[in-house]
């Protein structure tokens, strides 16, 4: 008796969602791609680096590429340092290590800043995606550019979603003066000269892509807010809300535990397209020269370099193009599947 009762207990809302999500094959493929991107960006130095993953030097074992995982890529101030010979800027592992000694190299034995003598080479056995005008391996640059692609969407849309859903929900639910004020704030932020802010940020602060994404997040929440507001407006007149109010539940609880899950569906479209759009925005900024600054690679600035070399080295344009394409598709597939999973009425 008790067992059959146990089996009839319904799952929670979110476990239902994930159950439905994983049944959607396209969504799963998209999610796998996103996870792969995240893994590549974390362990990029194990895939492409100019120093080995593990090697024997003068009798002792060293793990330089592993240490690189914990270091920032284009600076030389670190909180954790490699061991002695490997940390010297004049040390070149490929030449200075004894070739007969034991060493396991990453798949691509070049870092993204490594300039070889192989200038502007098309793809070959040594450089799988070819090299650029300064002899840098393109595959290495693509690998290390992945972290930008990963951070770009999540940071900006993360910030935008939090602000947008919160403010939009407040405006839609309470109406009245709160709605008026928040809507006006939305209008002011829509008209912000975002590009100018980005320009200024790039000058006054550290020109990292993270700062740019924070600025984008702080200015892109408006459309999410307006959708949320629209949905809350529509839903607040419904019976379940009135019931919850009659039951004496606090407004916050009603808004975020009851209304929000129902309002999420159209907002999710906006959010996932937003993440995908963030990658496209980064490439547009890099195209104009305002994204990730040289010599650090990002898919966006690799795309621009590829375009500038289109006539004489067309192989340079395909990797970033394909990568951007697949990342954007992947985010869209995930968003689609997620949204289909959230809305219980779609089955």
């Amino acid at each position, binding site marked *: 008796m008790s067992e059959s009762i146990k089996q009839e207990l319904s799952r929670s809302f979110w476990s239902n969602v994930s159950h439905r999500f994983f049944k959607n094959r396209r969504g799963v493929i998209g999610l796998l791609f996103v996870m792969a991107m995240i893994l590549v960006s974390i362990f990029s130095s194990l895939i492409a680096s100019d120093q080995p993953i593990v090697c024997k030097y003068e009798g002792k074992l060293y793990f330089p590429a592993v240490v690189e995982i914990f270091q920032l890529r284009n600076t030389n101030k670190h909180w954790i340092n490699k061991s002695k010979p490997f940390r*010297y800027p004049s040390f070149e592992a490929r030449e200075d290590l004894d070739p007969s000694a034991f060493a396991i190299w990453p798949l691509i034995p070049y870092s993204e800043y490594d*300039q070889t003598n192989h200038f502007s080479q098309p793809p070959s056995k040594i450089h799988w995606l070819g090299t650029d005008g300064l002899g840098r391996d393109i595959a290495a640059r693509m690998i290390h550019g992945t972290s930008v692609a990963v951070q770009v969407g999540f940071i900006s849309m993360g910030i935008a979603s939090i602000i947008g859903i919160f403010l939009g929900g407040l405006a839609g639910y309470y109406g009245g003066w709160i709605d008026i004020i928040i809507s006006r704030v939305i209008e002011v932020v829509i008209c912000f000269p975002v590009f100018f802010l980005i320009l200024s940020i790039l000058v006054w602060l550290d020109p990292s892509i993270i700062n740019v994404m924070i600025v984008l997040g702080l200015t892109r929440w408006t459309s999410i807010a307006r959708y949320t507001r629209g949905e809350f407006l529509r839903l607040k007149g419904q019976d379940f809300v009135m019931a919850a109010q009659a039951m004496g539940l606090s407004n916050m609880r009603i808004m975020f535990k009851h209304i929000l899950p129902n309002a999420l569906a159209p907002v999710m479209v906006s959010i996932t397209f937003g993440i995908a759009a963030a990658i496209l925005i980064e490439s547009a900024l890099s195209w104009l020269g305002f994204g990730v600054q*040289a010599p650090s690679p990002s898919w966006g600035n690799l795309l621009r370099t590829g375009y500038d070399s289109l*006539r004489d080295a067309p*192989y340079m344009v395909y990797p970033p193009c394909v990568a951007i394409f697949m990342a954007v598709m992947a985010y869209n597939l995930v968003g689609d599947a997620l949204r289909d999973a959230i809305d219980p009425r779609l089955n």
Partner: protein
Amino acid sequence: MKNVYKILLVITLATVLFVNGCTKSESDKGVDGNIDTPVVYNPDNDPLVNPDSIFKKRPKGAISEETIFINLKSSPNTLCPLFSSTHYDSIVLDQIFESAFTIDKKMTWIYSENAIVSFNESEDHTAYIVKLRKGVTWHDGTPVTAHDMVFSYDVVLDERVPIVSFRDEVKNFTTCVAIDDYTVKYTSSGKIATTKVSLQSIPIIPKHLYEKEREAFPDLKTGTYYNTLARHPVGNGPYKIVEWIENDKIVLERYENFVGEKPYFKRVVYKIIQDLTVALLTFEKGELDVFEAIKPKQFAKETNSESFKNVGYKACGKEWTYDYIGWNQDGSNPFFNDKRVRYAMTHALNIDLVFDQVYYNLGTRCYGTYHPDSWMFNNNIKLLEHDLEKSKKLLDEALWLIDENDGWRYKMIDGHKVKFDFEIMIPQGSATAPQIAAIFQKTLKKLGVELKTRTFEWATFIEKMLKHEYMAQISAWGTGSDPDGGWNIWRTEQYKEGRNTGGYANARVDELFFQGRHEFSKLKRAEIYKEIQKILYDDQPYLWLRNRVNLSVVNKRISGISFSPRGIMTFYPSQRNWWIDTISH
């Protein structure tokens, strides 16, 4: 579901094949697994560069009904000679206005026979008498007279008119009067050698048109009337303006009442195309005849296709412009006020690699401020070469020592350990600077010096330069026709007032510039400026990178091109001598 991926695959493959089909790779080496030695571009080995046909001189009086299409990378700002400030303004203005005094292709000061009959300079250099040619008219038919020249002089010195760059030069002339309708007399103090040259900076504008609303708008800029005049100028040159379509094109037509030598082409169309990749495509379609200031990379790598060879030739001429890395030695950073460090930097840069891979050998080694072709060039200067051992020694001597712990160089300053870690400022849009910085970064790393790059867009870059808020920067200077132009860059007091942004200070150089400005003998002036060049090279306030070359692509049908230190267009008569050689075609 599987069908979806099949479809995707097909679409991707199709796109890849299509794009591949239209962008045949222009690199000329094999790819199967082994790396061949890279083929380095050198314009001397390129048969398309500087073929004889493009230089063939125009026969006297040759004229036609043809139209020529020329590319402008950016729209001119104004076509009023008073306010012109950019290269693109000058290109078009040179056709519409006939300057009385100008420079020829050797950068020599000359007067134009289409405007002037004679020129007389007094012995003591205090009086200059100019006799105008009779019969010259403005495009509306009014004759050009001495009163126009006097008016122009008055206007340039009028403080109410916001003139940007040449007012100081014109102030060298104390008065300007019309002796009769066709004679003008200028007077000056007689002490400054560059006075005569300043004559070319006074534009001639039509008095009868510009004085009309001077009461209401003394700045000659505000108001509909003057705005229209700046967009549809009335000039005295061989071409008059037909139309100026915003950001699209400017069309000029030959002025048939022009008294002097008429140019060959009946119409000139300047097309304004900002994106250089697209401009080259337009050229290959045959819709552009002359495309000046093409990127070095395009010149070397993107002009070897069949479609290019069918239509065009390449022109590469020396230019009196140099690229450099400038050090800030005013003491705000601990590195570059030490001459040994600056020498170490120059020895550290692998300049041959830069020439091969960044400049594509388009350009020549730079010996400092003056160009080897100029009269003030000092040919006793020995170039500093790439030598890592020398760099190491110099850095050690300057007490920047390699630290045992992390391999970077440090120096003890006031009890603190300071790392040799500097930042170089790059202007946005530079085709070559980021790559030079990357190459430099690699070598400096081997020396234990850390180099970081930072790109700024133009307005910010300039502000930082003027406020001395930088450690090192990459940019370029053009040498004017007279070396006195360097006064503004090198004299000590110009740190506050002028372009001496790096805080260079040398009393002897200050003295020499002063002498050069007041010395009238060309021979003696040459000695003065040669000494300046030597001192400057010895002090290495800049790391001189290269002397530029002017790169253009020219349609096969065009002839009459000649080079000047300023390119193929902004000297006299340049564009007017271009023609189509129908005889040998």
